[in-house]
């Protein structure tokens, strides 16, 4: 009896999911994507799923260069107001309909007119899409828009089958990417399978891919270790050693474009009227009191990258004139004294109640105290913090940004007078002018010069300063071959295969 029972339990447990999964790659994500409609989606993890599901007009290389995807070549006119795009031939959507100029026109118009579209502002300069012929479109712009091409290398440039517009796109997205949508169980999994008619099908070695949202990083790692997942996103920096120590796992890393920093309320309501909001010298003193390298070592096991500016060091727009500031307590104290606070000063700082952010701000609190700055830390749940920030209910906020490939996306919204994310309401006419001009110029060297000029002002006034650039860390099963991470944090599956 006992033996039989043992046998039964063994059989029950033994029929595990270790059975072959075919060539389906199982990826653990840190959260559940939102709407799977490129026009409505807004989450970072959603973009990861789109990378397999939906091709874009333009793609981006690990060096952040724009390269062809559905558009094979493009030219921008002298005055910057016309963009001619040649489209790839022989491309079909997952429903079998052909991709052509009309489809591009329909997609851009949908992004601009759909009620719940999140893409409107990204492509607002496109006035008209002219279909010159089947595989040639001409975008007519209201004003020169240098960042537009980068937008078309993201969700705004993703193409869905116009035949599917009438259906529920979020529930059943029909794109033209390497994998097609099979099913989704909210908060559980998203299943995609290889699209046999993909234009670049030879590069796709997997039969399918499953995305499983697992918020807890320890649990995500445990799933990788137990063989229930093949690849995990956002490996915790403190777990890198565990992964390295395992014979079955490898870890991959890429410098990211996103940053974390501290934003000051300079002009948003009554709370802006505080010493730090009024006097840039104090902001600079705080910045100088912080040892960014130490934060990176302690909190991120050296895996992140200390930051000094909105462009990360991997970006061609990085400004060499502003390297990561060294900690300088004496100068910080001198600045405090100069501003009239030789005896010390206090600052209220809010931060999102997540473990990493908490560790970071606690280190800042300790380091600032040495310079004579007492920081009162206020932990807030993220949505609450954003809301308080927008309302001006803060002195300083430890907040970040996921990063964009074009420099415009990392700076304009945060410091220009009408910027959507300018919660401190910083305003400087010269900065506005320089950033607007940088938007309108397409020559890279000219743009660089303009951003660097803006940097000179911003580094003096410091309406916000930067702490570190996040790195993308992945835990990868030894069975996965061909995976290489990108600075934009996307998981590209071309050339990726499973050995078992």
């Amino acid at each position, binding site marked *: 009896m006992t033996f039989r029972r043992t046998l039964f339990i063994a059989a*029950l*447990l033994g*029929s*595990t*999911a*270790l059975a072959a999964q075919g060539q389906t790659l199982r990826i653990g994500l840190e959260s*559940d994507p*939102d*709407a799977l*409609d490129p026009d*409505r989606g*807004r*989450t*970072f993890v959603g973009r990861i799923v789109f990378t397999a599901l939906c091709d874009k007009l333009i793609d981006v290389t690990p060096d952040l260069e724009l390269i062809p995807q559905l558009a094979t070549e493009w030219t921008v006119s002298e005055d910057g107001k016309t963009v001619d795009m040649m489209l790839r031939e022989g491309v079909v959507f997952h429903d079998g309909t052909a991709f052509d100029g009309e489809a591009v026109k329909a997609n851009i118009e949908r992004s601009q007119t759909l*009620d*719940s579209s*999140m893409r*409107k*502002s990204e492509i607002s300069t496109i006035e008209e899409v002219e279909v010159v012929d089947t595989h040639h479109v001409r975008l007519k712009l209201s004003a020169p828009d240098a960042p537009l091409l980068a937008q078309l290398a993201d969700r705004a440039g993703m193409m869905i089958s116009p035949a599917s517009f009438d259906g*529920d796109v*979020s*529930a059943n997205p029909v794109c033209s990417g390497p994998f097609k949508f099979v099913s989704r*169980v*909210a*908060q*559980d*999994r998203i299943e995609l399978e290889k699209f046999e008619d993909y234009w670049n099908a030879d590069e796709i070695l997997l039969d399918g891919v499953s995305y*499983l*949202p*697992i*918020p*807890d990083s*320890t*649990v995500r790692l*445990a*799933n990788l*270790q*137990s*063989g*229930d997942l093949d690849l995990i996103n956002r490996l915790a920096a403190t777990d890198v050693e565990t992964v390295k120590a395992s014979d079955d796992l490898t870890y991959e890393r890429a410098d990211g474009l996103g940053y974390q920093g501290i934003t000051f309320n300079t002009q948003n309501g009554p709370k802006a009227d505080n010493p730090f909001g009024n006097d840039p010298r104090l902001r600079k003193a705080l910045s100088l009191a912080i040892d960014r390298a130490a934060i990176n070592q302690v909190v991120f096991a050296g895996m992140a990258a200390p930051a000094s500016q909105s462009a990360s060091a991997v970006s061609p727009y990085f400004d060499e004139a502003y390297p990561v500031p060294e900690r300088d307590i004496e100068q910080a104290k001198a600045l405090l004294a100069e501003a009239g606070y030789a005896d010390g000063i206090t600052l209220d700082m809010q931060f999102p109640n997540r473990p990493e952010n908490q560790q970071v701000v606690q280190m800042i609190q300790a380091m600032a105290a040495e310079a004579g700055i007492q920081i009162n830390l206020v932990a807030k*749940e*993220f*949505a*609450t913090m*954003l*809301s*308080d920030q*927008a309302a001006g209910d803060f002195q300083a906020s430890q907040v970040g*940004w*996921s990063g964009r490939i074009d420099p415009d996306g990392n700076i304009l*919204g945060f410091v220009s007078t009408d910027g*959507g*994310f300018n919660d401190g309401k910083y305003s400087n006419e010269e900065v506005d002018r320089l950033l607007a001009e940088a938007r309108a110029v397409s020559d890279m060297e000219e743009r660089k010069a303009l951003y660097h000029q803006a940097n000179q002002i911003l580094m003096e006034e410091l309406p916000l300063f930067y702490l570190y650039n996040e790195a993308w860390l992945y835990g990868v099963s030894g069975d996965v071959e061909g995976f290489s991470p990108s600075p934009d944090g996307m998981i590209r599956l071309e050339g990726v295969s499973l050995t078992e």
Partner: protein
Amino acid sequence: MLSYIARRLLVSIPTLILVSIFVFALQQLLPGDPVLALAGEDRDPETLERLRELYHLNDPIWMQYLRWIGGVLQGDFGQSIRTGLPVSEMIASKLPVTIQLAVMSMIFAAAIGIPAGIISAVKKGTMTDYVANIVALSGLSLPNFWLGIMLILLVSVRWQLLPASGYVPLTEDPLQSIRTMLMPAFVLGTALAASLMRHTRSSMLGVLRQDYIRTARAKGLGERTVVMHHAFRNALTPVVTLAALLFGELIAGAVLTEQIFTIPGFGKMVVDAVFNRDYAVVQGVVLVTAMGFILMNLVADAAYVMLNPRLKVS
């Protein structure tokens, strides 16, 4: 009995209305704007305003409430701001998962808690009693998330016996479905088992002191018959009530367990919804949970009556 149940159900309607108003009002007090939470990075003021209009968030609260409750009465719980999916559909897809988890946890809890309670009552004051009490206390005090992660590390990572997370519907592959649920059900069940054990024990102790038990023993009946046949049946009544009420608690306790084992049930859905200020989802889930509570209370009362026929008279 039937008229009693019908009357009770009728009485529960005002309760549900109160719950719905309460939830709706509380949500408005939550800091954070659903549209801001939804927009996240795309915090373009124009987009935000457009979305507020789209989701009627600029209307007065009472108007929003009436619109919502009007829909609910027609079976329409509204739309999730985040995923765009109908809330009723989301609830319908999560309900079987949560019920399966609750039932399996209850089986664990009862299988461990009730026998342990009986044994410790019968062996009162002995080593067995002390051990059972210590075990029960540990079960109550071990945090679910800790036990969950430990189990994952041991059972899934080290021994590779059970999947670390995920969920397979019962209808798709019953065996695999039960296997994925074993660990989470066990974690949830342990805390409940401790409650059940302690209640069974005290209830049994009360019954064992009764005169009729002494009479039964005096008649020369075997100890086994006395305990199981005479005492246990009577001691069971309060335990059943407790079990039914614990069932409600189980739904609440599932929140953390579902997060750890990434089981797509009610708990996980409501946590995500609160963080995203996805009001319609929170309201829908709370309302359905309240209905569940009321139903379980009713079941408890009915079971009470069935177990103790004397109550039928009243």
